[in-house]
Protein backbone atom coordinates (compact mmCIF):
# COMPACT_ATOMS: atom_id res chain seq x y z
CA UNK A 1 0.00 0.00 0.00
CA UNK A 2 1.81 3.03 -1.26
CA UNK A 3 -0.03 6.05 0.06
CA UNK A 4 1.28 8.30 -2.67
CA UNK A 5 0.34 5.83 -5.40
CA UNK A 6 -2.40 6.52 -7.92
CA UNK A 7 -4.72 3.77 -6.64
CA UNK A 8 -7.00 5.00 -3.86
CA UNK A 9 -6.09 3.04 -0.76
CA UNK A 10 -8.97 4.22 1.36
CA UNK A 11 -6.55 4.72 4.22
CA UNK A 12 -6.58 7.67 6.52
CA UNK A 13 -3.19 8.58 7.93
CA UNK A 14 -2.56 11.18 10.56
CA UNK A 15 1.01 11.91 11.62
CA UNK A 16 2.10 14.21 14.40
CA UNK A 17 -1.02 16.30 13.98
CA UNK A 18 -1.01 19.31 16.29
CA UNK A 19 -3.31 22.29 16.69
CA UNK A 20 -2.82 25.23 18.98
CA UNK A 21 -5.60 27.73 19.57
CA UNK A 22 -3.53 30.52 21.02
CA UNK A 23 -1.75 28.99 23.98
CA UNK A 24 -4.24 26.11 24.19
CA UNK A 25 -3.27 22.80 22.62
CA UNK A 26 -6.42 21.17 21.26
CA UNK A 27 -4.65 18.35 19.40
CA UNK A 28 -1.21 17.23 20.44
CA UNK A 29 1.07 15.19 18.15
CA UNK A 30 -1.69 12.81 17.20
CA UNK A 31 -0.99 9.70 15.14
CA UNK A 32 -3.89 7.82 13.66
CA UNK A 33 -4.42 5.07 11.11
CA UNK A 34 -7.79 4.11 9.72
CA UNK A 35 -8.13 1.07 7.49
CA UNK A 36 -10.69 0.41 4.74
CA UNK A 37 -13.41 -2.17 5.20
CA UNK A 38 -13.63 -1.46 8.90
CA UNK A 39 -15.45 0.91 11.18
CA UNK A 40 -13.11 2.87 13.36
CA UNK A 41 -14.47 4.57 16.44
CA UNK A 42 -12.76 7.83 17.35
CA UNK A 43 -13.53 8.24 21.01
CA UNK A 44 -12.80 10.78 23.65
CA UNK A 45 -14.55 12.83 26.29
CA UNK A 46 -16.00 16.24 25.47
CA UNK A 47 -13.30 18.64 24.41
CA UNK A 48 -10.78 15.88 23.72
CA UNK A 49 -10.09 17.29 20.26
CA UNK A 50 -12.09 14.91 18.07
CA UNK A 51 -13.89 17.54 16.03
CA UNK A 52 -10.75 19.59 15.68
CA UNK A 53 -8.88 16.54 14.40
CA UNK A 54 -11.62 15.73 11.88
CA UNK A 55 -11.74 19.35 10.75
CA UNK A 56 -8.00 19.30 10.13
CA UNK A 57 -8.40 16.05 8.22
CA UNK A 58 -11.03 17.76 6.06
CA UNK A 59 -8.96 20.85 5.37
CA UNK A 60 -11.22 23.16 7.35
CA UNK A 61 -8.77 23.89 10.14
CA UNK A 62 -5.13 24.49 9.39
CA UNK A 63 -2.86 22.26 11.48
CA UNK A 64 -0.16 23.95 13.51
CA UNK A 65 2.05 21.03 12.49
CA UNK A 66 1.79 17.48 11.26
CA UNK A 67 -0.08 15.93 8.37
CA UNK A 68 -3.44 14.34 7.77
CA UNK A 69 -4.05 12.47 4.51
CA UNK A 70 -6.76 10.43 2.85
CA UNK A 71 -5.65 8.10 0.06
CA UNK A 72 -2.23 9.63 0.65
CA UNK A 73 -3.41 13.12 -0.23
CA UNK A 74 -4.36 16.18 1.71
CA UNK A 75 -8.08 16.90 1.46
CA UNK A 76 -7.49 20.14 -0.44
CA UNK A 77 -5.49 18.21 -3.05
CA UNK A 78 -8.25 15.71 -3.77
CA UNK A 79 -9.99 16.37 -7.04
CA UNK A 80 -13.75 16.75 -6.48
CA UNK A 81 -13.45 15.57 -2.87
CA UNK A 82 -17.12 14.79 -2.24
CA UNK A 83 -16.78 11.83 -4.60
CA UNK A 84 -13.89 10.49 -2.51
CA UNK A 85 -14.60 11.51 1.06
CA UNK A 86 -18.04 11.98 2.56
CA UNK A 87 -18.34 13.71 5.88
CA UNK A 88 -20.91 14.98 8.32
CA UNK A 89 -19.56 17.26 10.99
CA UNK A 90 -22.23 18.88 13.08
CA UNK A 91 -25.91 18.26 12.73
CA UNK A 92 -26.58 21.98 12.65
CA UNK A 93 -24.93 23.02 9.42
CA UNK A 94 -28.05 23.90 7.47
CA UNK A 95 -29.53 27.23 6.51
CA UNK A 96 -32.84 27.31 8.37
CA UNK A 97 -34.59 28.93 5.41
CA UNK A 98 -33.44 26.38 2.84
CA UNK A 99 -35.06 22.98 2.45
CA UNK A 100 -32.96 19.93 3.16
CA UNK A 101 -33.42 18.81 -0.41
CA UNK A 102 -32.13 22.12 -1.72
CA UNK A 103 -29.18 21.93 0.63
CA UNK A 104 -28.26 18.63 -1.01
CA UNK A 105 -28.87 20.09 -4.46
CA UNK A 106 -26.40 22.87 -3.72
CA UNK A 107 -23.82 20.27 -2.75
CA UNK A 108 -24.72 18.20 -5.80
CA UNK A 109 -24.13 21.20 -8.07
CA UNK A 110 -20.80 21.92 -6.42
CA UNK A 111 -19.58 18.37 -7.00
CA UNK A 112 -21.20 17.54 -10.33
CA UNK A 113 -23.57 14.97 -8.84
CA UNK A 114 -26.97 14.53 -10.48
CA UNK A 115 -30.11 15.85 -8.80
CA UNK A 116 -31.64 12.39 -9.16
CA UNK A 117 -29.09 11.07 -6.72
CA UNK A 118 -30.27 13.65 -4.20
CA UNK A 119 -33.77 12.19 -4.21
CA UNK A 120 -32.46 8.62 -4.07
CA UNK A 121 -30.46 9.46 -0.97
CA UNK A 122 -33.37 11.17 0.72
CA UNK A 123 -35.31 7.94 0.22
CA UNK A 124 -32.40 5.96 1.60
CA UNK A 125 -32.15 7.95 4.82
CA UNK A 126 -35.91 7.96 5.15
CA UNK A 127 -36.78 11.67 4.92
CA UNK A 128 -38.01 12.17 1.33
CA UNK A 129 -41.08 14.22 2.29
CA UNK A 130 -39.63 16.09 5.25
CA UNK A 131 -36.66 17.22 3.15
CA UNK A 132 -38.99 19.46 1.16
CA UNK A 133 -39.61 21.57 4.23
CA UNK A 134 -37.28 24.30 5.48
CA UNK A 135 -34.45 22.92 7.59
CA UNK A 136 -35.15 25.38 10.40
CA UNK A 137 -37.87 23.11 11.71
CA UNK A 138 -35.92 19.86 11.59
CA UNK A 139 -35.44 17.68 14.63
CA UNK A 140 -31.95 16.59 15.60
CA UNK A 141 -32.59 13.15 14.15
CA UNK A 142 -33.66 14.60 10.83
CA UNK A 143 -30.57 16.76 10.73
CA UNK A 144 -28.42 13.71 11.34
CA UNK A 145 -30.13 11.86 8.52
CA UNK A 146 -29.81 14.81 6.20
CA UNK A 147 -26.15 15.10 7.13
CA UNK A 148 -25.66 11.44 6.39
CA UNK A 149 -27.34 11.86 3.01
CA UNK A 150 -25.02 14.78 2.29
CA UNK A 151 -22.03 12.64 3.21
CA UNK A 152 -23.16 9.87 0.85
CA UNK A 153 -23.88 12.25 -2.02
CA UNK A 154 -20.78 11.58 -4.10
CA UNK A 155 -20.76 7.83 -3.32
CA UNK A 156 -17.44 8.24 -1.49
CA UNK A 157 -15.25 5.34 -0.39
CA UNK A 158 -14.21 7.14 2.78
CA UNK A 159 -16.75 8.34 5.32
CA UNK A 160 -15.98 10.63 8.25
CA UNK A 161 -18.85 11.18 10.65
CA UNK A 162 -18.70 13.36 13.76
CA UNK A 163 -21.06 12.06 16.46
CA UNK A 164 -23.54 10.56 13.96
CA UNK A 165 -25.63 8.89 16.66
CA UNK A 166 -26.22 12.14 18.55
CA UNK A 167 -29.92 12.86 18.72
CA UNK A 168 -31.03 9.59 17.15
CA UNK A 169 -33.66 7.51 18.93
CA UNK A 170 -32.89 3.83 19.68
CA UNK A 171 -34.57 2.80 16.44
CA UNK A 172 -32.49 5.37 14.57
CA UNK A 173 -29.29 4.14 16.20
CA UNK A 174 -30.11 0.56 15.24
CA UNK A 175 -30.77 1.67 11.69
CA UNK A 176 -27.53 3.67 11.62
CA UNK A 177 -25.58 0.71 12.95
CA UNK A 178 -26.85 -1.57 10.18
CA UNK A 179 -26.26 1.10 7.57
CA UNK A 180 -22.67 1.73 8.65
CA UNK A 181 -21.93 -2.00 8.80
CA UNK A 182 -23.28 -2.40 5.29
CA UNK A 183 -21.00 0.39 4.06
CA UNK A 184 -17.97 -1.14 5.74
CA UNK A 185 -18.77 -4.53 4.23
CA UNK A 186 -18.65 -2.86 0.85
CA UNK A 187 -15.02 -2.09 1.62
CA UNK A 188 -15.41 1.56 2.52
CA UNK A 189 -13.44 3.31 5.22
CA UNK A 190 -15.49 4.60 8.13
CA UNK A 191 -14.25 6.92 10.84
CA UNK A 192 -16.84 7.72 13.46
CA UNK A 193 -16.35 9.96 16.44
CA UNK A 194 -18.25 9.78 19.68
CA UNK A 195 -17.92 10.93 23.24
CA UNK A 196 -19.95 7.94 24.42
CA UNK A 197 -18.40 4.51 24.38
CA UNK A 198 -21.72 2.74 24.79
CA UNK A 199 -23.05 4.48 21.68
CA UNK A 200 -20.46 3.00 19.35
CA UNK A 201 -18.97 0.04 21.18
CA UNK A 202 -21.30 -2.35 19.41
CA UNK A 203 -20.79 -0.69 16.04
CA UNK A 204 -17.06 -0.35 15.61
CA UNK A 205 -14.23 -2.76 14.81
CA UNK A 206 -11.33 -0.55 15.76
CA UNK A 207 -11.07 2.04 18.46
CA UNK A 208 -8.87 5.08 18.87
CA UNK A 209 -9.23 6.91 22.14
CA UNK A 210 -7.97 10.41 22.66
CA UNK A 211 -7.94 12.66 25.66
CA UNK A 212 -6.66 16.22 25.82
CA UNK A 213 -5.62 15.97 22.21
CA UNK A 214 -3.37 12.97 22.75
CA UNK A 215 -3.96 9.41 21.78
CA UNK A 216 -4.28 7.16 24.81
CA UNK A 217 -5.20 3.87 23.14
CA UNK A 218 -5.57 2.31 19.74
CA UNK A 219 -6.55 -1.23 18.84
CA UNK A 220 -9.40 -3.51 17.91
CA UNK A 221 -12.38 -3.57 20.20
CA UNK A 222 -11.49 -7.15 21.21
CA UNK A 223 -7.94 -6.20 22.12
CA UNK A 224 -9.03 -3.24 24.16
CA UNK A 225 -11.80 -5.07 25.94
CA UNK A 226 -9.33 -7.67 27.15
CA UNK A 227 -10.42 -10.86 28.81
CA UNK A 228 -13.70 -10.88 30.74
CA UNK A 229 -13.36 -11.15 34.51
CA UNK A 230 -15.59 -11.72 37.48
CA UNK A 231 -15.13 -10.40 40.99
CA UNK A 232 -16.01 -12.62 43.91
CA UNK A 233 -15.88 -12.09 47.67
CA UNK A 234 -15.99 -15.18 49.81
CA UNK A 235 -15.63 -16.48 53.35
CA UNK A 236 -12.61 -18.61 52.44
CA UNK A 237 -10.51 -17.14 49.62
CA UNK A 238 -7.78 -19.79 49.78
CA UNK A 239 -10.18 -22.69 49.42
CA UNK A 240 -12.13 -21.05 46.60
CA UNK A 241 -8.93 -20.11 44.79
CA UNK A 242 -7.75 -23.68 44.87
CA UNK A 243 -11.13 -24.99 43.72
CA UNK A 244 -11.36 -22.50 40.86
CA UNK A 245 -7.82 -23.20 39.75
CA UNK A 246 -8.68 -26.88 39.70
CA UNK A 247 -11.41 -26.01 37.17
CA UNK A 248 -8.70 -24.42 35.02
CA UNK A 249 -9.63 -20.80 35.82
CA UNK A 250 -7.13 -18.03 36.48
CA UNK A 251 -7.58 -16.43 39.87
CA UNK A 252 -5.88 -13.49 41.51
CA UNK A 253 -6.54 -11.75 44.81
CA UNK A 254 -8.06 -8.31 44.45
CA UNK A 255 -9.39 -5.71 46.87
CA UNK A 256 -10.69 -7.99 49.58
CA UNK A 257 -11.84 -10.63 47.14
CA UNK A 258 -10.80 -12.57 44.09
CA UNK A 259 -10.68 -11.77 40.41
CA UNK A 260 -11.53 -14.70 38.20
CA UNK A 261 -10.85 -14.70 34.48
CA UNK A 262 -14.19 -15.84 33.15
CA UNK A 263 -17.40 -14.32 31.88
CA UNK A 264 -19.51 -17.13 33.33
CA UNK A 265 -20.64 -16.21 36.85
CA UNK A 266 -22.51 -19.49 37.19
CA UNK A 267 -19.28 -21.48 37.05
CA UNK A 268 -17.88 -19.49 39.96
CA UNK A 269 -21.06 -19.95 41.93
CA UNK A 270 -21.20 -23.69 41.23
CA UNK A 271 -17.57 -24.21 42.20
CA UNK A 272 -18.09 -22.28 45.45
CA UNK A 273 -21.18 -24.33 46.23
CA UNK A 274 -19.41 -27.62 45.48
CA UNK A 275 -16.44 -26.70 47.68
CA UNK A 276 -18.74 -25.47 50.44
CA UNK A 277 -17.60 -21.84 50.74
CA UNK A 278 -20.00 -18.94 51.22
CA UNK A 279 -20.16 -16.24 48.60
CA UNK A 280 -20.65 -12.66 49.78
CA UNK A 281 -20.49 -10.94 46.42
CA UNK A 282 -20.31 -12.07 42.82
CA UNK A 283 -20.39 -9.81 39.78
CA UNK A 284 -19.01 -9.22 36.31
CA UNK A 285 -16.37 -6.53 36.13
CA UNK A 286 -16.11 -3.69 33.64
CA UNK A 287 -14.03 -4.39 30.57
CA UNK A 288 -10.69 -2.72 30.31
CA UNK A 289 -12.15 -0.56 27.54
CA UNK A 290 -15.06 0.59 29.66
CA UNK A 291 -12.80 1.27 32.57
CA UNK A 292 -10.29 3.12 30.44
CA UNK A 293 -12.99 5.31 28.98
CA UNK A 294 -14.68 5.85 32.32
CA UNK A 295 -11.42 7.05 33.83
CA UNK A 296 -10.91 9.45 30.95
CA UNK A 297 -14.27 11.07 31.39
CA UNK A 298 -13.75 11.21 35.13
CA UNK A 299 -10.48 13.06 34.79
CA UNK A 300 -11.78 15.31 32.04
CA UNK A 301 -10.63 18.87 32.32
CA UNK A 302 -7.86 17.99 34.68
CA UNK A 303 -4.83 17.93 32.49
CA UNK A 304 -2.29 17.56 35.26
CA UNK A 305 -3.68 14.35 36.57
CA UNK A 306 -3.31 12.85 33.15
CA UNK A 307 0.44 12.81 33.31
CA UNK A 308 0.35 10.80 36.54
CA UNK A 309 0.40 7.08 37.17
CA UNK A 310 0.73 4.43 34.54
CA UNK A 311 -2.27 2.37 33.64
CA UNK A 312 -1.35 0.68 30.41
CA UNK A 313 -2.09 -2.86 29.54
CA UNK A 314 0.67 -4.60 27.64
CA UNK A 315 -0.14 -5.17 23.99
CA UNK A 316 -2.97 -2.69 23.77
CA UNK A 317 -1.17 0.46 22.84
CA UNK A 318 2.34 -0.78 22.23
CA UNK A 319 3.61 2.45 20.72
CA UNK A 320 2.50 4.63 23.59
CA UNK A 321 4.40 5.25 26.75
CA UNK A 322 2.33 4.32 29.80
CA UNK A 323 2.29 7.81 31.38
CA UNK A 324 -0.18 8.94 28.73
CA UNK A 325 -2.86 6.79 30.28
CA UNK A 326 -4.90 8.28 33.08
CA UNK A 327 -4.78 6.96 36.61
CA UNK A 328 -7.68 4.78 37.62
CA UNK A 329 -10.24 6.51 39.73
CA UNK A 330 -11.86 3.29 40.89
CA UNK A 331 -10.26 0.47 42.84
CA UNK A 332 -6.76 -0.45 41.72
CA UNK A 333 -6.59 -2.98 38.93
CA UNK A 334 -3.85 -5.47 38.27
CA UNK A 335 -2.82 -4.55 34.75
CA UNK A 336 -2.28 -8.17 33.75
CA UNK A 337 -5.83 -9.17 34.61
CA UNK A 338 -8.84 -7.44 33.21
CA UNK A 339 -12.44 -7.21 34.22
CA UNK A 340 -15.41 -8.86 32.55
CA UNK A 341 -18.04 -6.96 30.59
CA UNK A 342 -21.77 -7.49 30.83
CA UNK A 343 -22.43 -10.62 28.80
CA UNK A 344 -25.04 -9.03 26.52
CA UNK A 345 -22.71 -6.24 25.46
CA UNK A 346 -20.13 -8.75 24.36
CA UNK A 347 -22.56 -10.78 22.33
CA UNK A 348 -24.02 -7.78 20.53
CA UNK A 349 -20.52 -6.64 19.69
CA UNK A 350 -19.87 -9.62 17.43
Amino acid at each position, binding site marked *: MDPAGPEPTGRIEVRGLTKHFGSFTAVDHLDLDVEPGRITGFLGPNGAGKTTTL*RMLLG*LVRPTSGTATIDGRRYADIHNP*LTVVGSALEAT*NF*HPGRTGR*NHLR*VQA*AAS*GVSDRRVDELLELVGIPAAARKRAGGYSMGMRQRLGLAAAMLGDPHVLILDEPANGLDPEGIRWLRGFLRHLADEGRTLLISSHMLSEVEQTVDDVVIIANGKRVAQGTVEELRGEPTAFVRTSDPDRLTAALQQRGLRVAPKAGGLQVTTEDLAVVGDVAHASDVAIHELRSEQTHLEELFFNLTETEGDRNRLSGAAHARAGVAPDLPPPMLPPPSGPPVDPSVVAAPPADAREAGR
Partner: protein
Amino acid sequence: MTPAIRAEFRKFFTTRLWWGMAIAVVLSGAAFAVLFALVFTSDIARGPQGAAVPQTDADLAKAVFTGGIQVGYLLTLAIGVMTIGAEYRHQTITATFLAVPRRGRVMGAKVLSLLVIGAFYGVLSLAGAVGAGTLVLTAKGHQPFADSSIWRALALSLLILGLWALIGLGAGILIPNQVAALLISIAVAWIVEPVLGLVLALTDWGQNISPYLPSRATAAMLESTGGGFDGQPVEQLSWWAGALVLAAYAAVMAGLGTWRTVRRDIA
Protein backbone atom coordinates in the same frame (compact mmCIF):
# COMPACT_ATOMS: atom_id res chain seq x y z
CA MET B 1 -15.01 26.64 -11.57
CA THR B 2 -18.43 26.23 -13.17
CA PRO B 3 -19.74 23.76 -10.58
CA ALA B 4 -18.79 26.20 -7.82
CA ILE B 5 -20.63 29.03 -9.59
CA ARG B 6 -23.70 26.86 -10.15
CA ALA B 7 -23.68 26.01 -6.46
CA GLU B 8 -23.57 29.72 -5.58
CA PHE B 9 -26.59 30.47 -7.72
CA ARG B 10 -28.49 27.58 -6.21
CA LYS B 11 -27.66 28.82 -2.74
CA PHE B 12 -28.94 32.25 -3.60
CA PHE B 13 -32.19 31.20 -5.24
CA THR B 14 -33.16 28.58 -2.64
CA THR B 15 -33.91 30.93 0.24
CA ARG B 16 -36.60 33.57 0.53
CA LEU B 17 -34.09 36.42 0.48
CA TRP B 18 -34.00 36.67 -3.30
CA TRP B 19 -37.63 37.31 -4.03
CA GLY B 20 -38.12 39.56 -1.04
CA MET B 21 -35.26 41.64 -2.42
CA ALA B 22 -36.71 41.41 -5.92
CA ILE B 23 -39.99 42.93 -4.80
CA ALA B 24 -38.18 45.68 -2.91
CA VAL B 25 -35.99 46.48 -5.91
CA VAL B 26 -38.85 46.64 -8.43
CA LEU B 27 -41.02 48.74 -6.15
CA SER B 28 -38.25 51.15 -5.18
CA GLY B 29 -37.22 51.48 -8.82
CA ALA B 30 -40.76 52.40 -9.85
CA ALA B 31 -41.43 54.60 -6.83
CA PHE B 32 -38.27 56.67 -7.20
CA ALA B 33 -38.86 57.05 -10.92
CA VAL B 34 -42.34 58.44 -10.33
CA LEU B 35 -41.16 60.65 -7.48
CA PHE B 36 -38.18 62.08 -9.37
CA ALA B 37 -40.22 62.51 -12.54
CA LEU B 38 -42.85 64.50 -10.70
CA VAL B 39 -40.41 66.57 -8.65
CA PHE B 40 -37.97 67.38 -11.44
CA THR B 41 -40.73 68.38 -13.85
CA SER B 42 -42.57 70.49 -11.32
CA ASP B 43 -42.62 74.24 -11.77
CA ILE B 44 -40.77 74.92 -8.52
CA ALA B 45 -37.87 72.66 -9.33
CA ARG B 46 -37.50 74.12 -12.80
CA GLY B 47 -37.53 77.66 -11.46
CA PRO B 48 -34.42 79.83 -11.11
CA GLN B 49 -33.24 78.40 -7.77
CA GLY B 50 -33.39 74.75 -8.92
CA ALA B 51 -29.79 74.75 -10.08
CA ALA B 52 -29.09 71.11 -9.21
CA VAL B 53 -32.04 69.79 -11.19
CA PRO B 54 -31.41 68.10 -14.54
CA GLN B 55 -32.18 70.52 -17.34
CA THR B 56 -32.06 68.56 -20.58
CA ASP B 57 -34.48 65.77 -21.41
CA ALA B 58 -31.61 63.27 -21.45
CA ASP B 59 -30.37 64.25 -17.99
CA LEU B 60 -33.91 64.21 -16.72
CA ALA B 61 -34.55 60.69 -18.04
CA LYS B 62 -31.26 59.43 -16.56
CA ALA B 63 -32.11 60.88 -13.17
CA VAL B 64 -35.60 59.40 -13.27
CA PHE B 65 -34.66 55.93 -14.50
CA THR B 66 -31.70 55.47 -12.16
CA GLY B 67 -33.27 57.08 -9.10
CA GLY B 68 -34.05 53.63 -7.67
CA ILE B 69 -30.47 52.48 -8.20
CA GLN B 70 -29.40 54.81 -5.39
CA VAL B 71 -31.48 52.65 -3.07
CA GLY B 72 -30.93 49.47 -5.05
CA TYR B 73 -27.22 49.53 -4.37
CA LEU B 74 -27.89 49.50 -0.65
CA LEU B 75 -29.95 46.35 -1.20
CA THR B 76 -27.28 44.56 -3.19
CA LEU B 77 -24.75 45.71 -0.62
CA ALA B 78 -26.92 43.91 1.93
CA ILE B 79 -27.14 40.88 -0.35
CA GLY B 80 -23.36 40.78 -0.57
CA VAL B 81 -23.08 40.91 3.22
CA MET B 82 -25.71 38.22 3.65
CA THR B 83 -24.43 35.71 1.10
CA ILE B 84 -21.26 35.28 3.10
CA GLY B 85 -22.67 36.27 6.50
CA ALA B 86 -25.33 33.57 6.36
CA GLU B 87 -22.70 30.98 5.46
CA TYR B 88 -20.76 31.74 8.59
CA ARG B 89 -23.80 32.24 10.75
CA HIS B 90 -25.45 28.96 9.81
CA GLN B 91 -22.11 27.25 9.25
CA THR B 92 -22.98 26.21 5.74
CA ILE B 93 -19.49 27.47 4.94
CA THR B 94 -18.33 24.07 6.18
CA ALA B 95 -20.36 22.28 3.49
CA THR B 96 -19.20 24.82 0.92
CA PHE B 97 -15.52 24.22 1.64
CA LEU B 98 -15.99 20.47 1.89
CA ALA B 99 -17.34 20.44 -1.66
CA VAL B 100 -14.74 22.91 -2.96
CA PRO B 101 -11.74 23.01 -0.62
CA ARG B 102 -9.89 25.48 -2.84
CA ARG B 103 -11.19 28.54 -1.07
CA GLY B 104 -9.94 31.00 -3.64
CA ARG B 105 -12.09 29.19 -6.16
CA VAL B 106 -15.13 29.50 -3.90
CA MET B 107 -14.49 33.21 -3.51
CA GLY B 108 -14.08 33.59 -7.27
CA ALA B 109 -17.43 31.87 -7.73
CA LYS B 110 -19.01 34.18 -5.19
CA VAL B 111 -17.61 37.26 -6.92
CA LEU B 112 -18.84 36.20 -10.35
CA SER B 113 -22.25 35.12 -9.11
CA LEU B 114 -22.71 38.37 -7.17
CA LEU B 115 -21.88 40.42 -10.27
CA VAL B 116 -24.55 38.51 -12.17
CA ILE B 117 -27.01 38.76 -9.28
CA GLY B 118 -26.34 42.50 -9.06
CA ALA B 119 -27.07 42.84 -12.77
CA PHE B 120 -30.21 40.73 -12.33
CA TYR B 121 -31.52 43.13 -9.70
CA GLY B 122 -30.43 46.02 -11.88
CA VAL B 123 -32.68 44.70 -14.63
CA LEU B 124 -35.55 44.39 -12.18
CA SER B 125 -35.04 47.89 -10.80
CA LEU B 126 -34.81 49.40 -14.27
CA ALA B 127 -37.85 47.49 -15.46
CA GLY B 128 -39.86 49.15 -12.72
CA ALA B 129 -38.20 52.54 -13.19
CA VAL B 130 -38.32 52.74 -16.97
CA GLY B 131 -41.90 51.50 -17.03
CA ALA B 132 -43.21 53.97 -14.48
CA GLY B 133 -40.81 56.78 -15.38
CA THR B 134 -41.63 56.70 -19.10
CA LEU B 135 -45.32 57.09 -18.34
CA VAL B 136 -44.81 60.16 -16.18
CA LEU B 137 -42.18 61.80 -18.41
CA THR B 138 -44.27 61.32 -21.52
CA ALA B 139 -47.33 62.66 -19.79
CA LYS B 140 -45.33 65.75 -18.82
CA GLY B 141 -44.21 66.26 -22.38
CA HIS B 142 -40.58 65.13 -22.02
CA GLN B 143 -38.63 62.75 -24.26
CA PRO B 144 -37.80 59.60 -22.24
CA PHE B 145 -35.04 58.42 -24.62
CA ALA B 146 -33.54 61.63 -25.91
CA ASP B 147 -30.02 60.30 -26.60
CA SER B 148 -27.84 57.22 -26.29
CA SER B 149 -26.14 58.31 -23.04
CA ILE B 150 -29.33 57.09 -21.33
CA TRP B 151 -28.59 53.55 -22.43
CA ARG B 152 -25.08 53.83 -21.08
CA ALA B 153 -26.43 54.93 -17.71
CA LEU B 154 -28.83 52.02 -17.70
CA ALA B 155 -26.06 49.55 -18.53
CA LEU B 156 -23.80 51.02 -15.87
CA SER B 157 -26.62 50.68 -13.35
CA LEU B 158 -26.30 46.91 -13.65
CA LEU B 159 -22.58 47.14 -12.98
CA ILE B 160 -23.12 49.45 -10.02
CA LEU B 161 -25.37 46.97 -8.26
CA GLY B 162 -22.89 44.15 -8.87
CA LEU B 163 -19.94 46.17 -7.58
CA TRP B 164 -21.77 47.20 -4.43
CA ALA B 165 -22.63 43.55 -3.81
CA LEU B 166 -18.89 42.83 -3.87
CA ILE B 167 -18.24 45.63 -1.39
CA GLY B 168 -20.85 43.91 0.79
CA LEU B 169 -19.12 40.57 0.34
CA GLY B 170 -15.90 42.03 1.68
CA ALA B 171 -17.68 43.79 4.55
CA GLY B 172 -19.52 40.57 5.43
CA ILE B 173 -16.22 38.77 5.83
CA LEU B 174 -14.26 41.51 7.57
CA ILE B 175 -17.03 42.11 10.13
CA PRO B 176 -17.58 38.65 11.62
CA ASN B 177 -21.06 39.19 13.06
CA GLN B 178 -23.66 39.22 10.31
CA VAL B 179 -26.06 41.61 11.98
CA ALA B 180 -23.27 44.02 12.86
CA ALA B 181 -21.93 43.74 9.33
CA LEU B 182 -25.34 44.60 7.89
CA LEU B 183 -25.95 47.53 10.20
CA ILE B 184 -22.47 48.97 9.85
CA SER B 185 -22.23 48.67 6.09
CA ILE B 186 -25.71 50.06 5.44
CA ALA B 187 -25.22 52.90 7.91
CA VAL B 188 -21.88 53.79 6.38
CA ALA B 189 -23.00 53.53 2.77
CA TRP B 190 -26.32 55.24 3.27
CA ILE B 191 -25.58 57.97 5.78
CA VAL B 192 -22.00 58.34 6.98
CA GLU B 193 -20.23 58.26 3.65
CA PRO B 194 -22.58 60.56 1.68
CA VAL B 195 -22.60 63.09 4.52
CA LEU B 196 -18.82 62.86 4.70
CA GLY B 197 -18.75 63.54 0.97
CA LEU B 198 -20.83 66.68 1.37
CA VAL B 199 -18.78 67.91 4.30
CA LEU B 200 -15.54 67.28 2.45
CA ALA B 201 -16.90 69.19 -0.53
CA LEU B 202 -17.14 72.29 1.66
CA THR B 203 -13.40 72.42 2.26
CA ASP B 204 -10.80 73.28 -0.33
CA TRP B 205 -8.68 70.17 0.11
CA GLY B 206 -11.71 67.91 0.62
CA GLN B 207 -13.18 68.98 -2.70
CA ASN B 208 -10.48 67.00 -4.46
CA ILE B 209 -11.15 63.87 -2.40
CA SER B 210 -14.93 63.70 -2.27
CA PRO B 211 -15.44 62.71 -5.94
CA TYR B 212 -13.51 59.52 -5.16
CA LEU B 213 -15.89 58.38 -2.44
CA PRO B 214 -17.97 55.34 -3.46
CA SER B 215 -21.32 57.14 -3.49
CA ARG B 216 -19.89 60.00 -5.57
CA ALA B 217 -18.27 57.53 -7.95
CA THR B 218 -21.64 55.81 -8.25
CA ALA B 219 -23.38 59.10 -9.02
CA ALA B 220 -20.68 59.88 -11.57
CA MET B 221 -21.35 56.58 -13.34
CA LEU B 222 -25.01 57.54 -13.59
CA GLU B 223 -24.10 61.11 -14.55
CA SER B 224 -26.70 62.22 -12.07
CA THR B 225 -26.01 65.73 -10.87
CA GLY B 226 -26.23 65.81 -7.11
CA GLY B 227 -26.49 68.99 -5.12
CA GLY B 228 -24.25 70.03 -2.25
CA PHE B 229 -25.39 71.73 0.96
CA ASP B 230 -25.66 74.98 -0.95
CA GLY B 231 -27.80 73.39 -3.67
CA GLN B 232 -25.07 73.91 -6.27
CA PRO B 233 -23.95 70.86 -8.31
CA VAL B 234 -20.90 69.17 -6.76
CA GLU B 235 -17.87 68.28 -8.76
CA GLN B 236 -17.79 64.69 -9.99
CA LEU B 237 -15.73 62.32 -12.09
CA SER B 238 -16.55 61.33 -15.63
CA TRP B 239 -18.66 58.17 -15.92
CA TRP B 240 -15.74 55.92 -16.82
CA ALA B 241 -13.50 57.26 -14.07
CA GLY B 242 -16.35 56.72 -11.64
CA ALA B 243 -16.67 53.13 -12.87
CA LEU B 244 -12.96 52.53 -12.35
CA VAL B 245 -13.05 54.01 -8.85
CA LEU B 246 -16.07 51.95 -7.79
CA ALA B 247 -14.53 48.83 -9.33
CA ALA B 248 -11.39 49.53 -7.31
CA TYR B 249 -13.40 49.68 -4.09
CA ALA B 250 -15.10 46.40 -5.00
CA ALA B 251 -11.80 44.76 -5.86
CA VAL B 252 -10.16 45.87 -2.62
CA MET B 253 -13.07 44.72 -0.46
CA ALA B 254 -13.51 41.38 -2.24
CA GLY B 255 -9.73 40.93 -2.24
CA LEU B 256 -9.42 41.57 1.49
CA GLY B 257 -12.33 39.21 2.09
CA THR B 258 -10.72 36.49 0.01
CA TRP B 259 -7.39 36.94 1.74
CA ARG B 260 -9.13 36.59 5.11
CA THR B 261 -11.21 33.60 4.03
CA VAL B 262 -8.35 31.58 2.62
CA ARG B 263 -6.46 31.83 5.90
CA ARG B 264 -9.25 31.43 8.37
CA ASP B 265 -9.98 28.26 10.38
CA ILE B 266 -13.49 26.99 9.90
CA ALA B 267 -14.12 25.75 13.42
